[in-house]
């Protein structure tokens, strides 16, 4: 089933096409959700709500861009909306509360590299993690992040700087990232 057929079927509310779309993109999107969520169950809830929105708003998709990118955008916003319902999230994006991060080696899992990196990101405090996800991975600007998260642009910058520093530290400890820090290049196949 081509992407065009799937899209047409989804526009006509055909369950088969919807399932095909879901099967095609859900693994990757669950990976996205997993980076924002506390655990896998929460990630699946985010995925579910996100895909319901995708199917509800599928008519608004213009064929000008990639379908995956459009779906990903909706999923990310769904994740953020769900996180924002939680009071802890609001506190965590506040720079004052995000200052005292205490890490130790026990927090770093030993997994395959792609998952290792994701798990390392998930070790970060929620506020750090969200800003890092949005800026470094999703490619939002600090201005956009400030609008999405309802924080100051400077707060977003500070959060990201600290998140990045902390993540580097974690990755180096796990030997996923090479020293010296100036190079900041990940070792391919590390941890495999």
């Amino acid at each position, binding site marked *: 089933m081509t992407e065009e057929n799937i899209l047409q079927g989804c526009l006509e*509310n055909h*369950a088969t096409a*919807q*399932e095909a779309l*879901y099967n095609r993109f*859900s*693994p*990757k999107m*669950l*990976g996205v959700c*997993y*980076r924002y969520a506390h655990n*896998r169950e929460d*990630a*699946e809830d985010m*995925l*579910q709500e996100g*895909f*319901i*929105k995708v*199917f*509800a*708003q599928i008519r*608004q998709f*213009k064929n000008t861009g990639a379908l995956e990118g459009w779906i990903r*955008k*909706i999923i990310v*916003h769904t994740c*953020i*909306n769900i996180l*924002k*319902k939680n*009071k802890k999230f*609001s*506190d965590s*994006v*506040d720079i004052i509360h995000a200052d005292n991060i205490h890490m130790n080696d026990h927090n770093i899992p030993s997994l395959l*590299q*792609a*998952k290792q*990196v*994701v798990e390392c*990101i998930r070790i970060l405090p929620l506020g750090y993690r969200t800003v890092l996800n949005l800026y*470094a*991975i999703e*490619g939002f600007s600090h201005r956009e992040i*400030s*609008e*999405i*998260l*309802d*924080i*100051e642009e400077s*707060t977003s910058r500070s959060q990201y700087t600290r998140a*990045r520093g902390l*993540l*580097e530290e974690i990755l180096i400890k796990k030997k996923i990232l090479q020293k010296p820090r100036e190079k*900041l*290049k*990940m070792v391919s196949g590390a941890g495999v």
Partner: protein
Amino acid sequence: MMDFEESLREHTDRFTLTPSRRVWNSIYNDLHPGSKWPSKSISLMLLFSIIIVGNVNIGYRKSNPSLLISTQNNFSNKETLQNTSTHQQKKNNSHFITAYQATSHATNQGIPEPLLIPVDNDLQPTPFDDLTSAVLTKKQSLNNSLKGYSTNSIPLKSINPANKTYNSDINNQAVVANTSPEQLEILTVQIPILGIKMPDMDKLNAGELINPQTQIPSAVAMNKDGNENKESQPSVAKISLKKIRKGAWTFYLNPSISSARFTAAPLSQSNISNTSPLMVSAPNITANRQYNARLSLSVGATSTLPINDRFQFTSGLMLTYLGYQTTSNFIHPTFADLILKDKTGSTYLKSYITHYGNGLGYGQIQLNNYSYQFAVPIGLQYSIINNQKINWEIGSSIAPSVVIAAQSYILSAEGRNYLTDPGLGRRFNLLANFESFVTFKSSGIKWQIGPRFGYQVFSSFKNMNPEREHFFDYGLKIGITGK
């Protein structure tokens, strides 16, 4: 972008997880809630059946005269009834009644012969009927019958006019059942006979003929030879007035103009209660929503059941389409927020991607807001004027409804964009209807025409959306009433 971010993105993009089947099942159930319809359909069918059974029971009361006429049955001419072609009469859906020939049909002996009056209603006699009086259904039938015999008349009962008791009564009495749909009442009519001038039956007014309790004149059945059947005893029948209420179905079409009323505006960002203290409050833009009314339509069927002379209970089914148009303009895809309320009353922000702005610039577009609802109206009608030619009634009803399909564009918190979210739509609602109409007959069809106003009681949105949208419509109801 720096190497670190690129490398991070590359690694995270490769990361996938397979979701459990539960996720897709939940999504599927949300997208295709058809599995819930059987239970709803059965509920509606049950309700519909109750209405139908109620009407049928009323009809049964009408069609079974034994339920209507309580008499002391001492007649022995049941055999006559049975031996004659009563069954054939039933097949023909007509029967005949006896009365006395008033003037021209008297016999040579001066004994009035039984006058057979065809009745074309569905008040059919049975062998068990105790028709000690003539039963008529239509004044016109009676009048026509008095002018001449019907050749295929079959006497149900013969009355011996020589009976003293009877002769002493100047006025024969008959029961007239007026079975016109609007005046279904058993009437007791005093019919002057035996030399007494017959009144003009056309001038008979049903309302004037009601006699709640009538002593039926004595009557003696006669055999074929015209001899008195001595087994027959005079009978005094007490006929109590029983009003027969028959329901009627009206099928109607209601073209109308519909629009919406907004009783609460969307919340601005300053209303958010559970976000970060560092949150920047956006300026509260009071944007005006520009929208236009549009044509809408309701179709349905209403069953009316008289409660008394003036009031009628109504119930039925209705399918309605309501809508209006919002003036918008195309914009580049952008994020728009809504401030929603959770169950605890706290507010939170929800972001959407939208293509529609709240402006009047280039690329203007009319956004269609609509709602298809299936409703079960229940209400009352009151007759202001009720006569033979025309009725004027007012009515109101409430109608619990199921929203079959709906789309409403919501103004964003900033007031700059319009967005939709089917998840915010209410599945069940309540419609209120007010109407006034006249009923008249034209070309054999009974019409109902009059203005009608409808209002959606609950907001189209769930309570989590503070904005309140209520559809309303006003139009002309055109209905046809069946028997």
